[in-house]
């Protein structure tokens, strides 16, 4: 059976806001650009994408870069992204860092810039207002 994609479940999205919660295990098997494509495709459809485990700094950098190339007047103005600050994980061993297993686990919310507005953010709470297109 083919794996479901977030957009498969889009039926009545014009009546509300679709939220895709993407698990860490779903993202784990993807290459960087596949992750970015998955996120941006969802966001460009007007969905709010929530990543259980976030992106690495390098992937965040590429996400900004690719987002910029896709901005177009009166169509897509970019993304709003919020996550908790990256902390040096206390449970991350020297061996993990040496092996490239850098912890990036941080809940991350991404949405279309014209539909999501951050109301409050601190290191323990992110409060956002989401509107329809």
């Amino acid at each position, binding site marked *: 059976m083919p794996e479901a994609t977030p957009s498969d479940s889009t039926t009545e999205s014009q009546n509300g806001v679709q939220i895709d919660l993407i698990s860490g295990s779903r993202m784990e098997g993807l290459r960087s650009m596949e992750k970015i494509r998955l996120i941006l495709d969802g966001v460009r459809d007007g969905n709010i994408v929530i990543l259980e485990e976030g992106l*690495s*700094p*390098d992937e*965040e*950098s*590429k996400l*900004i*870069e690719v*987002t*910029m*190339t896709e*901005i177009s*007047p009166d169509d897509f*103005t*970019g*993304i*709003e*992204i*919020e*996550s908790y*600050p*990256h902390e040096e994980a206390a449970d991350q061993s020297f061996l993990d860092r*040496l*092996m*490239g*297993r*850098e912890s990036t686990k941080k809940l991350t919310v991404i949405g279309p*810039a*014209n539909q999501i507005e*951050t109301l409050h*953010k*601190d290191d323990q709470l992110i409060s956002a207002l989401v509107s329809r297109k």
Partner: protein
Amino acid sequence: MGLLTNLKDSVSRVTDRLFASDDPKRIGIYGPPNAGKTTLANRIARDWTGDAIGPESHVPHETRRARRKEGVDIERNGRSVTIDIVDTPGVATKVDYKEFLDHDIEKDDAIRRSREATEGVAEAMHWLREDVDGVIYVLDSTTDPFTQVNTMLIGIIESRDLPVLIFANKIDLDEADIKRVADAFPQHETVPLSALEGDNMDEVYDKIAEYFG
């Protein structure tokens, strides 16, 4: 794979620094739009070369291309350090041409500016990943530093092991809050300054020489 890649990167980084220690370091000036990056770049360039780098403006995204000033010799404490300054466009995750309309810019010009701004941000990110040896991160000390763009960029800089100085700019303004900037990124040294007024530039140059020399 991770072990080999990391070891290769580390060895490459160390050898690069050893063999290129006398080469000018490319120092990228990064930060959000309107933090005063170009004002700072111009201040440094004028103080040490007599030339400016680019036009300054209150309109966001005035700098839409990375601009470089090569061979800036900064003399501190009897020795000289040479840096190449790269003034980068302010980094953002969104650019809406309608924001330019608020600055009395016509629609066609606003659309052109927004298009150039997006290209500039992408270029700035590319420079950060590939082409700078150190970073001066400029923040407007009258605004909240605890934003996602700042958090992400500092994370990206740290992940690349680049030396970074945080500059809390615009301390000449009453609303400036240097402690708020320092508290947002306690893992890095914060230097207060006013690039516009030239306040505290001695410490700025001392730190540049110390971190990037």
